[in-house]
Structure formats: structure tokens, C-alpha cells
């Protein structure tokens, strides 16, 4: 209700509402892709296939949202893949050692571990004044190194894992698989956090104009510390879910995943230079990436070609998106004259 009131209060017409809804271009491209692939293959547009796509992007959405908050503050967290790998490994070893453990407790343990790792990132960046890209490049290696040290090169296999832990992500007590529900819950929580809390507002303020935020009395360092802790927390959660979903924890778990977590938000309209980004954008961006991957397999593009075509489609999506945005902006400008 509040939202409706705010939108009509501006009464600037449909065009500028579309411009403000930054994600319109990516939505358009996604729908276009779905139509084209549906025509090419009958198995694409089925409930089962969509369940697959959603399962495949759930972890990406969770970590992509974390990455978005970091990017909004003009930072980047390259250590997400290593944090996921380390938490997955430590929690997997723990559940194997204590098979009777409540899976939710495993989840909490992962979150606590993630928070600790994220705090280190945050402290180095906020108070050590190390540029985020360098700090997290460093911890990317450190955390991955810890995976090897902790596991001594060993790994956890599917058959070793207790059933309850596997069900944490795969169970369907509410019809929809838990993993998808976790991602949806995170998306809703992050949305509420950014929109209805002081810290959420401060994150945008710090990223849009750090100087003005300082003058307004916002403790910029503190806000920056917090986003990296949140990133750690969500990676901790993602690590546990990853181990549960793939029923394994290996030294190369989530290796290179950081690139996808940047691609998802950026495709979804998050400004890589900070200041803006929305939950719906990250969800749409991740969904588009998932759909592209899925579609390429379904229309039987040769695996040799898949990576290149995937990259091509991502670029195309971003180009279409910015073209649509530009047209809308000029249209509203002329409308105002």
C-alpha cells in the first residue's frame, strides 16, 4: 500500500516508471529467450524443467545478493567461492563426525563460520583501508589454502553424509524443494533489510556518495564492515547448502564461483561502480544466467560451444538492456519538454 502511494505521488507517467524499474530490459530479454527456446524444444517449457533451473540458481541467488550489497558500497568480494568451499568442507567433516546432528544446527554452524570469515574481510577493508579487490583476492587464496590444510587433501563423499543433512536442501516438505525456499527466504529478507532498516539505507548512501554520507553522520567504515560480514554469513549458508545439494565437499568446491556471483548482479542491473542495485534485479539476472545454461543444453548446443555461446548471450542481454534503457530515458526527457 505504501509502495503504491509513493509511486503515484510522483505521477510522472508510465515511461518514467519503466525507467525507474531498471530491470525491464533484462525481463524483456529473458521472456524473449524463453519464447525462442520453447519453440525450438518442447521439453523446455515444463514445470520439471523450471524446477531444475530454479534449483540450479538458488545458491547463485543467495551469494549474488551478498555480492550485490558489497558492490553497492563500491566494493567487491572475490573470496565468496573460497568461503563457500571452506565452510562446506568444515561442516561436511562435522556432520560426518556427528551424524545425529540436527541439520539446522549444521546450517547455523556454517553461518557462524561464514560470519567469522566475512569479519576478517570487513576488518581488513574498513579499518585496514586495503582496497576490496586486493583484500578479497588475498583472502580468496588464504581461505582456499585453509580448505587444503583443514582437509589435508581429503574429501567427503555422498555415501558418507547422513540422510538428514542431504535432505536439508533436497527435502520437499512444502512441495517445493527446500533449497529454492531458502533462496526465496533470503531474497525476501534482503529486500526487507535494504528497504526497511537504517543499515540498509546507509548501504545505498555510502555507495552513492561516500562524502555526503560522512557529512550526514553515517559511520562509513562501520557500514562497509557490515556488508562483508553479511557476505560471509550468506556464503556460510551457501556452503552448507552446497555440500548438502551436491552431497560432497571437495577441495575445489565452488572454485571460480565468484565470477558468476558478479555476473548475476551485473546482468541484473546492479551498477558495478556502486550506489544502485535491487533484489529483483539480482534474482532476474541469476534466472537469466540459469535459463541460458539450461537452454543451451536442451537445444543440444555442442559442449565445446556452450561457454562461448553463454558469454555471447550475456553480452547480448546487457546490450539489449542498455539500449532499451536509453530509449526510455530519451523518451521521458522529450516528454518533459
Amino acid at each position, binding site marked *: 500500500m505504501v509502495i503504491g502511494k509513493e509511486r503515484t505521488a*510522483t*505521477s*510522472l507517467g508510465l515511461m518514467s516508471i519503466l525507467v525507474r524499474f531498471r530491470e525491464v530490459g533484462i525481463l524483456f530479454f529473458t521472456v524473449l529467450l524463453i519464447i525462442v527456446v520453447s519453440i525450438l524444444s518442447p521439453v523446455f517449457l515444463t514445470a520439471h524443467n523450471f524446477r531444475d533451473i530454479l534449483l540450479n540458481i538458488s545458491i547463485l541467488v543467495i551469494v549474488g545478493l551478498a555480492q550485490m550489497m558489497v558492490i553497492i558500497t563500491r566494493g567487491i568480494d572475490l573470496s565468496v567461492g573460497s568461503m563457500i568451499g571452506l565452510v562446506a568442507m568444515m561442516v561436511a567433516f562435522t556432520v560426518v563426525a556427528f551424524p545425529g546432528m540436527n541439520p539446522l544446527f549444521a546450517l547455523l554452524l556454517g553461518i557462524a563460520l561464514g560470519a567469522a570469515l566475512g569479519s576478517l574481510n570487513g576488518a581488513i577493508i574498513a579499518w585496514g583501508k586495503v582496497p576490496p579487490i586486493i583484500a578479497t583476492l588475498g583472502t580468496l587464496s588464504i581461505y582456499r589454502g585453509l580448505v587444503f590444510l583443514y582437509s589435508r587433501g581429503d574429501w567427503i563423499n555422498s555415501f558418507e553424509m547422513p540422510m538428514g543433512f542431504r535432505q536439508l536442501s533436497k527435502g520437499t516438505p512444502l512441495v517445493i524443494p527446500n533449497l529454492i525456499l531458502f533462496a526465496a527466504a533470503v531474497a525476501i529478507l534482503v529486500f526487507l533489510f535494504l528497504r526497511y532498516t*537504517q543499515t540498509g539505507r546507509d548501504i545505498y548512501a555510502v555507495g552513492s556518495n561516500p*562524502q555526503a554520507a*560522512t*557529512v550526514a553522520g553515517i559511520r562509513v567504515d562501520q557500514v562497509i564492515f557490515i556488508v562483508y560480514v553479511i557476505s560471509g554469513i550468506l556464503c556460510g549458508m551457501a556452503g552448507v547448502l552446497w555440500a548438502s545439494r551436491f552431497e560432497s565437499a571437495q577441495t575445489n568446491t565452488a572454485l571460480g564461483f565468484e565470477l558468476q556471483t558478479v555476473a548475476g548482479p551485473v546482468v541484473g542491473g546492479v551498477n558495478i561502480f556502486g550506489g544502485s542495485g535491487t533484489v529483483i534485479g539480482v534474482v532476474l539476472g541469476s534466472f537469466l544466467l540459469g535459463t541460458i545454461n539450461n537452454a543451451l543444453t536442451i537445444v543440444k548446443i555442442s559442449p565445446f560451444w556452450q561457454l562461448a555461446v553463454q558469454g555471447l548471450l550475456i553480452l547480448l542481454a546487457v546490450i539489449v538492456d542498455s539500449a532499451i534503457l536509453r530509449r526510455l530515458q530519451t523518451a521521458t526527457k522529450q516528454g518533459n519538454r
Partner: protein
Amino acid sequence: MNQLQPLVSLDGISKAFGGVQALKGVHFEIYPGEVHALLGENGAGKSTLIKIITGVHQPDQGEILLDGKPVRLADPRQARSSAIAAIYQEPNLFPDLDIAENIFVGRQPKQGKRVDWQEMYREASKLVHSLGLNLDVKTKARSLSVAQQQMVEIARALSLNARVLIMDEPTSSLTLSEVAELFTIVRHLRETGTAIVFISHRLDEIFQIADRVTTLRDGIYVDTRMVADVTREDLVQMMVGRTLSSLFPKHDVHAGDTVLEVEHLAGEGIFNDISFELKAGEILGIYGLIGAGRTEIARALFGIEPATGGRIKINGREVSIKSPQDAMDLGVGFVPEDRQMHGLILQMPIAQNITLPILQHFVSGFWLDRNKESSTAHDLVRRLRVKTAGVWQLARELSGGNQQKVVLSKWLGTNPRILILDEPTRGIDVGSKSEVHQLLSQLASEGIAIIMISSELPEILGMSDRILVIREGGLGGEFAQAEATQEKLMHAVTTIRPA
């Protein structure tokens, strides 16, 4: 000199930015072999005129003649190829390239396709020595002093065969002996027939170096005189010679208790030994040239870059202000100079801008009460008569005057007892300006203590109960409203402190 044809001549130049008329019918001629000083207050239009001569801006009206022929300087590149070069207060060199590379950047002497380094260093050496400088041309620009960097810029201009050299406040960051060195070079250039446009706020320098002086006031051409024929008083008169408009709402002084005492405040290398008092209901004007340290004093009082020495007392108690949060807790508000950079978050809605410093007032439990936030913002917007489609309109969509009102709303929302305003009416239209002035008077009558920094004399004289002059980081005088005149203030800021 006057028998010659002017090298560059500008006739009837006008230029407006948005609604602000920066130049109106300005006339300016530069002859070869003269040093022509350009004089005027901050905002008189000097910079705009320079930008037109160097092709950065194009005039709305008027004609530019080069060697008597009309030209259009569409961009800086064209001005450069017309032999017009400029050097600025802050040199613009590539710090990691050496002197020779800086001089020849983008047009290195070539042998075939390869850069001819030997030739480049030889040429650079020749140029540098012709300026009487004793510098190794393989020195990196980073390790040069500001003065030396300026010399390199001059050398670069000369290597471009510049016939017109514009020097925009070249002396403001130089020591006295460096200024003397610079002047030696300027005189040397004059002898070789270069035309020099010299801008400085220091009247003494104009008497030392310039042949003629042209004065601008509020974007309007005042006069061009031979320096030999004028006195300091004449120049000051030409710069300020206007009658105070009645735009400024007079307000009665009913100063209350002293709320702020500043003692020997210092900021590392920028300002020193600043002491003053401020009473409730009083408007204290701070006047000084841009770069004199006014803004830094304000930023120190608000804890953005905390002072490195001295004491601050609020309501008689010594306080420590280490961050804006500290200042706000003590009831201090701050309207910064650059509203786009420091005052607003342009891509946020008006409401969110206004509530930014007081967001904690809208938190109930964990969540923000956006309705309450919205209605508070709405009240302030109405009180300040911000013209907007609604409080959820983005700040960047507003005009300058309305943006400034949003910044003021934001700080009024914090209920300050002391309000510091840095250039509160810069770049806004006349209507908003007078609204801001009325608001300040009203706030003072409600007992808020106000510090108003401004480079506009009429504003300072019209609004302030007392005026503090800041000159080169120090206190240059204090005047009661009754005794202050434009001439006195202008004298106070343009006198060089004994070295």
C-alpha cells in the same frame, strides 16, 4: 603599444549557464608584449572568460578576433592550435613522466616511427634553460615543487609556440621567492612579444607585474586601465563598486548567550590560530577568498577533518569534535559548499536525503517507519517551499535552488543549535537566494546561532551581525556590521601578510 593590432580581441561576449548570467557584453583585448591583469571578485566571471578564450566554453553572443580575423574556438584543441595556452593554479602534469616527456607529451619528436629520445631531451633542455631554469629534464614531475611544475607548464606552452599565455592565479600556492622567480620569467616572455593574461587576487602583484588591468564585476565589463594610472583604492572601487541591494532582509540583533567559543583553532598546514565567539541568534559572516581556509575551518568545526590544535567550547564546556556524529550530537548542523558532492545523494529521493542524518528517529524496533519518515520529509519540504512533484522525486531532478533547499531541510530536521553554512546561495537563482536569506533571518530570530561563509560581499554585508575575515589561513580582521564596508573587507582579504 596601442598602435599595434591586438593579438586576441573579444567583443560583446555573453554567456549564461542555466538561468545564471555569467558574462554580459564583456570586452577584452590582449596585445603582444603586454601583461594584462584580469581582476574581479570570486564569481565575477574571470574563469568563464578564460574558458571562452581557451575554447572550453563557447560564448552565447559576441565575437572573438584573432589577429583581427573572426574565429570560432570550438574546443581547447583549436585554441591551442591558435597559439593560446593556459596554466592554472594547480599544475596539470603527468607525475610519473619526466620533464621532457611532459613537455612533448602527444607530439614527441620522431625519427621514422620511433620516438627520437635524444632530440626530445636536447630540445627540452634548450627550452628549460631558455627560461633560466637549472633543472635536469629527466627529473620526474612528481618530485618537482609546485613552482617548478608551473615552469614546466610554461615551457610546454612555449614549445607549442604560444603567443598568448593565460596564467590563472599562478602565484596562489607559491612562496614569495618563487613568485619573484616566476615574475622574472613573465617579464622575459613579455620582452619576446608574448601576450600574457595574468589573474591574481593579490593587488600588490598586479602593481608589480601588469601593464594594464581589466576589471569584471558580476559578469559585466567595468573598465580597462593602465596600471601606472591607477591606485589600489581605484582597483578596489572597480571590483566592488555597486550599491547594496535591498534584497537582504534586515533582522534585529538580539544576541543571546555565547554558544560557541573557538580558541586558537588550527588545521595542519591549512589554517592557524583562529579564535572567535558566536552567540545565540547571531549571524557571523566569514569572508575570504576561495582557498583561504574558510571551508576547512567549517569542516573542522563539524568534525569532517578534525582540527589538529586549539579548543572548541559549546555552551561554555570544552568539547571534542572528532566526527560529524560528534558535532551533530552537540547540536551542530552543516550545509556544505558543494551540494552535489557533499550535500546530497543525487540518486536518492528527496525524502531519503532529508532524513539521512536523523534516520534513527524513524526506527521502531528493527524496522524503519517509512510513513513517518515520509511525513516528516513532507513537512520540511513544505516549510521550505521546495518545488517538487513529491518527496519521492529524485534529488538530481531538482533545480539548484531547490536542491539547496533540500540540503537546508535536511539540516533543519536535526534541530541544530548552531548552523554552519558554506556558500549557502552559490549558483542558485535570485528568487531562491532571497528565500534562503529570509530563512536564515528567521532561524536567527528563533535563537539559532549561524555561521555563514560566503565570497559574495553583498551577502556578507547584508546578512551578518559580525564579519570575520580569513586571509591565507589566518584571521585577517573582525568587523561589526556597522563599521564594515565593501572596501574595508576587500582590503582585508587582498593584503599580503608579511612573510
